Every structure is written in structure tokens, then in C-alpha cells.
């Protein structure tokens, strides 16, 4: 009886995830058609092309942007999660605030950043009105804007697992630390941070993986200049009309993510907060 409960999910992921994935895998080994699409014969040429310095550069750039985003999320998110975990009865309220952005669509939230950052946007208008600057700061269409957008969108994915691991931490551990001589910052560094490390690692990967594959944020806020793996894939299927190469790039991305996820799930403590 129990296995029947899984049937709807199995059908769904089978039809709409596994089968399309197999199709993309097949495409990645075919030859590009003249007007998009794919043709025979089978070839590994698309994968070989990924080794081209141009594309390795894009891969490196994606890893770099994702890593910086993860780091920023850690610096912003850990204190936030700690604050919420120590908030007693108001915990639920603060958690809802963290989740509040999910009430609007990802696309709209990202668009909103354009209205904040552009030359005639809120920030530049206010700064100019206060005569702090004479001409608009170039806030939009650069790496900074992409990082801001990524951190903003994925911060909750960091805060939640870290909160979960801080929440599970036995308060007696801090009392034991105080008993042994560590309070305040010492206790934070020697007990709270290491004890919540499974949550920090889980949160970091939960930010890193979607950042690595993101294409909307670099597209909208990077102004097309900040090409990441996601944008490369999109371009191949649209303007470049090279479906096999796009498919191969997708699989390269999938491979990196799957490897990270596999490493992560091997750790029992990390599994427990995901």
C-alpha cells in the first residue's frame, strides 16, 4: 500500500523530468541542424568544445560569482539566523519576514532591483537630490548588481537550514562553555559556529547551486555583459541555434551540481538539517 503513495510523484518526475532529461542528453551527442534542432550523426564534439578557453572562462566566472554570492549570504545570513534563533516567541514572526519575498514572483522581485539601481532609480535619485553625487552612479548592469540580485534572492535558502541547526542546538552547550570559561564571542566561535556547521554547509550549497545555474538575474541585472553558464545555455537554444552545444553545457552544469549534492548528502549531520 505504502508504495502507491509515491506513484503521483513518480509519474510527475518521470514524465516531466527524467524523460526530458534523457532527450537533452541525446541532443548533446547529436549534430546541430542548420536552423536549430538536431541531426545525425552521433558525436562528442559539443563536449569537446566546452574545453575551449572561452567556455572554460564562463564556467570559471559562474563558479566565482556563485562562490562570492554564497560567501555574502553566509556573512549576512549567519548573524540573521542567530538573531532569529535567539528571539524566543517572535521567532515565527521573523521567519515569516524572511519568507515574505516568496509571496511575489522571482521575476518581479528581480525587476524591482532595476528600479532601485538604474540611473533614474530610487538610489541615484535620492543621492542626487541630497547633492551627494552630481551624476548617477553606475549601479546597474555590472557584477555588483548581479551579486546583489543573487544574494537577495537566495538569502532565505541560507537562513533556513542555519536556523534549523541553531534551533536544534542544546542550550546547555553554551552553559557548559561558560562553565569552562568561554562566553560571548569566544563561545560563539568555539561552540555555536562549529555546532551549526552542518547547517552552514547545507545553506552554502543551497545558495551555490542555484547561483551557479542562474540565468535570469545575470540577464536582467548584468545587462547581458555578465555571461554565466545559464545564459550560455539559453543563448545556444535561442539566438545561437546550437542545441547540441546548449545541451552539453546543461549537462556540464548538472554534473557540477550533482557532484556537490552527492558530497553533501554523504554527511549525516548535513542531511539532518536539509
Amino acid at each position, binding site marked *: 500500500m505504502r508504495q502507491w503513495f509515491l506513484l503521483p510523484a513518480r509519474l510527475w518526475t518521470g514524465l516531466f523530468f527524467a524523460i526530458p532529461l534523457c532527450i537533452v542528453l541525446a541532443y548533446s551527442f547529436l549534430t546541430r541542424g542548420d536552423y536549430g534542432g538536431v541531426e545525425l550523426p552521433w558525436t562528442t564534439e559539443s563536449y569537446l568544445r566546452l574545453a575551449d578557453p572561452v567556455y572554460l572562462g564562463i564556467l570559471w566566472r559562474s563558479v566565482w560569482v556563485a562562490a562570492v554570492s554564497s560567501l555574502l549570504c553566509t556573512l549576512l545570513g549567519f548573524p540573521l539566523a542567530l538573531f532569529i534563533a535567539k528571539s524566543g516567541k517572535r521567532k515565527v514572526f521573523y521567519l515569516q519576514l524572511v519568507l515574505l519575498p516568496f509571496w511575489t514572483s522571482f521575476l518581479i522581485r528581480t525587476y524591482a532591483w532595476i528600479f532601485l539601481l538604474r540611473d533614474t532609480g530610487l538610489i541615484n535619485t535620492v543621492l542626487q537630490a541630497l547633492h551627494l553625487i552630481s551624476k548617477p552612479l553606475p549601479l546597474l548592469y555590472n557584477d555588483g548588481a548581479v551579486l546583489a540580485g543573487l544574494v537577495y534572492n537566495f538569502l532565505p535558502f541560507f537562513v533556513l537550514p542555519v536556523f534549523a541547526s541553531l534551533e536544534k542546538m*542544546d542550550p*546547555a*552547550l553554551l*552553559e*557548559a*562553555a*561558560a*562553565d*569552562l*570559561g*568561554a*562566553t560571548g564571542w*569566544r563561545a560563539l566561535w*568555539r*561552540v555555536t559556529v*562549529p*555546532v551549526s*556547521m552542518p547547517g552552514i554547509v547545507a545553506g552554502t550549497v543551497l545558495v551555490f547551486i542555484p547561483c551557479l545555474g542562474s540565468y535570469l538575474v545575470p540577464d536582467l541585472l548584468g545587462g547581458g555583459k555578465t555571461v554565466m553558464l545559464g545564459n550560455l545555455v539559453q543563448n545556444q537554444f535561442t539566438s545561437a541555434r546550437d542545441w547540441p552545444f546548449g545541451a552539453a553545457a546543461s549537462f556540464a552544469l548538472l554534473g557540477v551540481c550533482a557532484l556537490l549534492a552527492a558530497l553533501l548528502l554523504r554527511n549525516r549531520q548535513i542531511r539532518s538539517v536539509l
Partner: protein
Amino acid sequence: MISEPLLELRDVHKAYDGRRVVDGISLTLGRGGFYCLLGPSGCGKTTTLRMVGGFENPESGEVRLNGRVVNGLRPYERNVSTVFQNYALFPHLTAQGNVEFGLRERRLKDCAAQALRALQMVELADKASRMPAQLSGGEKQRVALARSLVLQPELLLLDEPLAALDPKLRKQMRTELKRMQRQTGITFLFVTHDQEEALSMADQVAVMNAGKVEQFGTPEEVYLRPATRFVAEFLGLVNWFGPVGVRPENTVAARGGEGLAGTVEDAVFLGNCMHVTVRLFDGSTVISELPAQGALRAGDAVKVRWAPADEMRFP
């Protein structure tokens, strides 16, 4: 010369949300003994221990260590250490790392060697590199003890130290704790709700009820000469004959002779002895603890008696 007491509590009070948890406790502990705070849950024994440990502050009254008032001092600023109920071992550190924690905070030399010696004392040196999750309950307990003892506190506080262990291990750890106390000469103060544990381990027991100490004395004193009805009943079964209480082991039920007449209602075999329940003619029941070979059976007519010396009287 009278040496200064190690720990002195003077009229200590503590309340949470208006509920008086500790309601005027005064207690004096000498140096080098094994002391126990015994009482039912909610009697304020753990709060008292936490005020000595430095995790709570009294609202009024004084906590003195070596004659010095320590109210408001942080846990590590007083020469005491606490073994927590669930041990509170740091899950990210090995057994050795846990024991080294306090030494490193004090910036001492030879942390590793000292920690290893402490682990040797609790017979865990061979498991020094295990993580807490890989240790059994009894082993965790030993690590927690070593972690505190390595700092050589004057007073070691133990919060229900045996509650999380299974019954067999519990009895073994009682002897073990006694041994460690004697070996180190450190004063131990532990909290428990288990009277058997208190009687078998402590040199002196403070029996607590509703935030107050009802009696402070040796196990013999509190068991044989309880100061109050509460103490008498908390430490063991009591048969009440008006204001007079008699323990079952001092209450004799026999077929003939003098005594109060009654009928055996039930006879329960307990291995080393029997508990015979007798209904007296006034309708009350008493329990008599008799040798297991006793031939009393339900329905037997018996006489119940006791020696006047075994009477416990309360006004």
C-alpha cells in the same frame, strides 16, 4: 580550629514568573564530602544547584564560596564546575577535545597531556579520539566528569548525573562516582529525585520540598530520624498510626502474640523479602516487610506490632 565552610547559602530566594522556586534556603557544606540535594521535581533543587554554578542569580540572599560572596559572578569566575544532566558534550569535538576545552580557555600549557591524564582517571584513555556520538551513555558521562575534574574545581556540581543511564549502569556509576570523589578529594554536590541514589552515595543529604530544605543530615539521620512527615514519606514507605510512623521493615505481622489485629490482604514476593499488606479492623492498611520464607497468606488473621524505638513521631 574550625575551617571555613566551602559553600554557604544564606537565605537564598529565587522566583520565576512570581512562583517561588527557591524560598529561603540556608545550607553549609564542608570541604571534601559527597553532598546531595534530594527532592521531588519542582522542589527547587536544580535551581539551587544552578545558583551555585553561576547560571542563575538569587533574588536575595547570599551564595558564598570560601567565605566570599559569589552572587553575580560568571560560572568560570567561581571555582566550581558543573556536570550537566545530558552531559552537554560538544558534538564537534572528540572526547579529548571536550576535556581540553576548559584548559585551552585558561591558556594552560600541556593541555593534551593533562586531558589525557583526566581521561585515564575515568578509564576512557583508549577512546580519547572518539566523537561523543560514538560513545555510550556511561562513557559520555565519564567524559563530562573528566572535562570538569581536569580544571580541579573546589566544588563539582552534578545535575541528576545518573538519570539518563539504564538501571544497571546506574548502580555501577554510583560506586564509580564515590570512588572519584574520594580519589580527587573534590567536594561533590549532586541533585537527584531518587532517594535510593541519595542514601547510597551521599555523606550528607539535604531533603528539599517546595523551595525549602526540610532536613539536612546523614543518610541514617534523614531515613531513621526524619524531621518532618514529608521527609519520612519521601525517603521510604511509612505506616501511619496516628501521629506515629513506622517503616515496613520495623512493622512485624505474625499469627500470634500481642498487637493490632488484622487480616492479610495480600502478600507480594520481592525476592529478598516479602511485602505483606494487612487490613486492620479500623479499615486502614499497613505494610509489613518480612523475610521471604514467611508463611503468611492472604486471609490469615494476624497481629501487627513494632518496637517503640522504631517509632517516628511528628507533632
